[in-house]
């Protein structure tokens, strides 16, 4: 022990000497963004995975930037998640299939170009076109003619979608391939924003410094390290930025970002690392936020494997669900940054939007005896053991999978009933789960694209839907979803979706685990910090100083 303390002191002494010189040198060039009136704030960021194009960005970090530099036809209210008109003057329909969109007057891109109906139509056609490799192309799949510009196989047959027509400078019509009453509500998603001519004319230049029509404009972008956004003074919208700008700094590790916040080098961290949750109230007091986001964590099952899709399997799945002590896991492992799930959607939808607390009922309540009984009645676990597959590289999934297994093992009085099955990288995990190579339950996190019940159900449980990796299929569910989509009255549509959700429950198509919260911590310079339902800070509302 003595040696250790000595060493510590020695190390400090050396470091002190060095740090002294470091400070002397660094101080002159300092100022780090705080010099210009304190109006610019800095925020943690991670390098976007894909090129920063609206229809090509499918993760939060790239989406964060898009939501700062773009405004679409609709905008989701940061508090309620409701889709409100932004650039849309009106979106009219009489049959839930043909829509007429009128764009508001007076909007421009930050390079001065006017935002017209064509800005939207061209952008959507670009996003849908197979040739452009846009990873979010499927967002346009409801529009008629999508199958021509983005065929499942073979060559692209058309340049533009036949369902989109520019009818005036500020009006265009959309014809969908099927009835979809919530279509206007999906238009707040980043993939649907308008694009300026510069995007097509000088694509590389645009990617190096994107130009949009939102409250912020990109001042400089150093890929992999930093993006400086400044307030766009001529922004015509009502939600103009209340600060001078935002500097997004790329952090390799959210722990370092947190440390930088503590040291006063960073203003905002929008992902408090799990290891720091114990200290966060001590460190930050009321400068810490922990609110529900549109994210749910579930366990999906391989329905293509007959072991999981036989007569008694429903009971086994329900039994497993009852063997998981959600409350304990969310409290001990996640320090209450997750909320035990009681349905298959998210609380951010609100009761009117389709969130139904307690829809899962007893099936999501921990009861070891009932769990044991159900699994026994269902014919026992396939192979006497469940393996929960997850990716071990990010998101502390190992922690909770081990806890879930512990809970199952305890409930069943069997040390070997459940084990975790880690896979090294997310890419590998995804390639195995999407090609149906998994033989047991696997983690299936879902982050909503837009705050709609439809988005929590259809992509995950509809037959052959894009994220239905377990290949669950149920005719009644499909029929109810189709009906709900065709329903023009929003309240009725929500009711139909909940009916469909009950089908998911009765078959236990996936075990809901918990709703994920978004978290943020900030420095004393900031006020009015809030997270939207997508767990992204509402940057334009933040006040500095």
């Amino acid at each position: 022990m003595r040696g250790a303390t000595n060493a510590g002191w020695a190390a400090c002494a050396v470091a002190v000497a060095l740090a002294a010189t470091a400070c002397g040198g660094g101080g002159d060039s300092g100022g780090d963004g705080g010099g210009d009136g304190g109006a610019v704030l800095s925020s943690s960021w991670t390098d976007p995975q894909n090129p920063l194009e609206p229809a090509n960005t499918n993760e939060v970090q790239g989406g964060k930037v898009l939501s700062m530099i773009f405004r679409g036809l609709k905008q989701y209210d940061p508090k309620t998640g409701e889709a409100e008109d932004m650039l849309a003057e009106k979106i009219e329909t009489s049959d839930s299939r043909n829509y007429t969109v009128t764009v508001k007057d007076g909007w421009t891109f930050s390079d001065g170009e006017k935002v017209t109906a064509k800005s939207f139509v061209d952008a959507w056609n670009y996003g849908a076109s197979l040739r452009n490799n846009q990873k979010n192309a499927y967002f346009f799949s409801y529009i008629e003619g999508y199958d021509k510009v983005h065929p499942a196989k073979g060559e692209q047959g058309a340049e533009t979608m036949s369902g989109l027509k520019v009818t005036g400078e500020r009006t265009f019509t959309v014809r969908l391939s099927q009835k979809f009453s919530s279509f206007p509500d999906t238009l707040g998603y980043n993939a649907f924003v308008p694009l300026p001519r510069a995007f097509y004319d000088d694509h590389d230049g645009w990617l190096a410094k994107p130009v949009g029509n939102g409250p912020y404009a990109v001042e400089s972008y150093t890929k992999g390290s930093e993006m400086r956004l400044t307030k766009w003074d001529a922004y015509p919208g009502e939600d103009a930025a209340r600060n001078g700008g935002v500097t997004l700094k790329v952090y390799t590790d959210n722990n370092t970002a947190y440390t930088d916040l503590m040291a006063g080098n960073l203003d905002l961290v929008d992902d408090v690392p799990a290891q720091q949750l114990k200290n966060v109230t001590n460190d930050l007091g009321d400068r810490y936020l922990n609110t529900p986001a549109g994210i749910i964590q579930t366990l999906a099952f391989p329905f293509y494997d007959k072991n999981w899709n036989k007569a008694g399997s429903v009971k086994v799945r329900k039994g497993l669900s009852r063997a998981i002590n959600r409350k304990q896991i969310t409290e001990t492992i996640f320090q209450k940054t997750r909320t035990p799930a009681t349905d298959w959607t998210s609380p951010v939808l609100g009761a009117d939007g389709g969130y139904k607390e307690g829809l899962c009922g007893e099936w999501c309540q921990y009861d070891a005896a009932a769990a044991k009984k159900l699994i026994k009645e269902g014919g026992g676990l396939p192979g006497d053991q469940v393996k929960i597959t997850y990716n071990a590289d990010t998101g502390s999934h190992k922690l909770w999978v081990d806890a879930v297994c512990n809970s199952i093992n305890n409930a069943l009085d069997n040390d070997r009933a459940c084990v975790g099955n880690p896979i090294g990288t997310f890419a590998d995990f995804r390639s195995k789960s999407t090609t149906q190579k998994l033989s047991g339950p696997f983690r299936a996190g879902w982050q909503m694209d837009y705050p709609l019940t439809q988005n929590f159900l259809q992509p995950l449980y509809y037959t052959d839907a894009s994220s239905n990796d377990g290949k669950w299929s149920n005719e009644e569910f499909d029929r109810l979803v189709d009906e709900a989509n065709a329903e023009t009255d929003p309240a009725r549509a929500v009711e139909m979706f909940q009916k469909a959700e009950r089908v998911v429950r009765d078959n236990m198509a996936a075990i809901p685990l918990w709703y994920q919260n978004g978290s943020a911590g900030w420095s004393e310079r900031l006020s009015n910090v809030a997270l939207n339902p997508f767990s992204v800070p509402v940057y334009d509302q933040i006040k500095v100083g």
Partner: protein
Amino acid sequence: MGRYVVRRLVQMVPVFIGSTLLIFLMVNVMGDPVAGLCGDRQCDAATAAQLKKEFGLDQPVWQQYLTYMGNVFTGDFGTAFNGQEVTELMSTAFPVTFRLTVVAILFEVLIGITLGVVTGLRRGRPIDTGVLLLTLVVISVPTFVTGLLLQLLLGVERDWIRPSVSTEAPFDELIVPGLVLASVSLAYVTRLTRTSIAENRRSDYVRTAIAKGLPRHRVVTRHLLRNSLIPVVTFIGADIGFLMGGAIVTERIFNIHGVGYQLYQGILRQNTQTVVGFVTVLVLVFLLCNLVVDLLYAVLDPRIRYA
């Protein structure tokens, strides 16, 4: 000498080809990288096929390798998934890591060799025991512990350094990370030098030098140190490669956007182009360092001359 250098350079070719092929195969075995690009949703088949074609993943691995190597010789290392040229990533990452490595090596040479000489000459004295204990502690404490502790102590508690290094990563900000990165090797260098010095102190040529009446500092620097440095130089030479490739932990802690960061990202995202590209360059660095080490032998000890 000239022929020796040429022979060594020619030997590098098979090593280079072999190691890049191995890395290429290993990254490819990990599975389909496109699957991870679309997040928690499956890429639709058409887009996935298109992406595979764009990244050349639709061809057999051997063909991918040949194309890749062909491109590498023209200086084209391919494109990362986020649309950036790998050469562009390299041009930002390598200088940063290079600076970090220089700082680390300087620490190793200055502190490590000095401590080694001091303890080697005073074997068994309290200072020797003290330094020995200290090196033991440094070796046994993992780098990330030292890194995080120093970061917390000097960056948050004391405010003497910035906990994270800025994008430009100038030398002065890299001092503490460099020390952390060097710490373990530094301890080894100290121990190596100490043993070597202690061993050679009793050798004939040192005794002769002392008998000749040479001043002490001259005996130590010209005779003793020069001969004792051979194992140390070998170690430091090999360490340059290790430091450049193995800076992942240190770079993560201090948010340095260097080679370690790019490699880590590349592996996480299964980005073949990035990983293979960076490793290719690292292999070259390793090979060159080894060559330089071998050449330095001759300088240090004229008896070891190559035909």
